[in-house]
């Protein structure tokens, strides 16, 4: 999902997409799918919201913190959304089984 949700996009979207895709390749097998939206956060500031679908095993309570921390760190370090794009990153996580149960619109 690459949706600007009505927000004026002042970034070179193709380059941002390419950098994110490059970062996604480094996430490892726990990350089944990654989508993102560029839109304002709840304070109106420009932000990028990642939605990462994880393998169910990666969302167990004993490993989820390590998994999500590692994924967020890779995406932040590779894309540098604040420094290079002026976008504050936010991360949402969902297990594969939760994703399958969903029928409504995705949150990213």
């Amino acid at each position: 999902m690459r949706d600007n949700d009505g927000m004026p996009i002042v970034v070179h979207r193709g380059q941002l997409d390419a950098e994110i895709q490059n970062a996604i390749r480094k996430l490892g097998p726990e990350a089944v799918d990654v989508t993102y939206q560029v839109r304002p956060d709840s304070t109106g500031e420009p932000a990028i919201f990642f939605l990462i679908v994880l393998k169910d095993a990666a969302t167990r309570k004993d490993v989820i913190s390590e998994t999500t921390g590692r994924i967020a760190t890779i995406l932040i370090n590779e894309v540098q959304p604040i420094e290079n794009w002026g976008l504050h990153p936010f991360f949402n996580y969902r297990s594969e089984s939760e994703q399958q149960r969903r029928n409504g619109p995705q949150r990213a």
Partner: protein
Amino acid sequence: MAYHDDLLAQALELVYTAPSTQASLRRAVSAAYYAVFHLLVAEATSNWNNVPLRAALGRAYDHGIMRAVSNRLLNMRDFTFAGEDPNVVAGLRFVAFTFTELQEHRHFADYNLIEDLDPSDALSQVTSAEKIFNRWPSIRSEQIAQEYLVSLLVKRS
């Protein structure tokens, strides 16, 4: 236990409630955010010698200013922390990042009923808050951590 410890315990209890409900998940995320908020305020005001007035001083902390300060700290180009211990810098950036992340998720949890909050998402947020509680003691005495606490009170134009 301190109030922030109670809030974290409540968040953990709620997020592990089975079967989960939207109410339990959303309250868990909200409690996790406020646990971190009150931890930081308590740490900052603990430097105030007049103990009975610490709670009153804590009322001066503003969620928006704390978020703006935390956001600024995450800019690795503007805040290089040259010469500082990389582990301390990483710990402080984790606190700042997680505070902002939790505040945004609390906003969703408390107000956005358009779509469900995923259990994995709630668990991720609560465990991140727990990680702050585990990590903060190792950096709290560092000068850059103390500067961060003071800056949380200062509005910049």
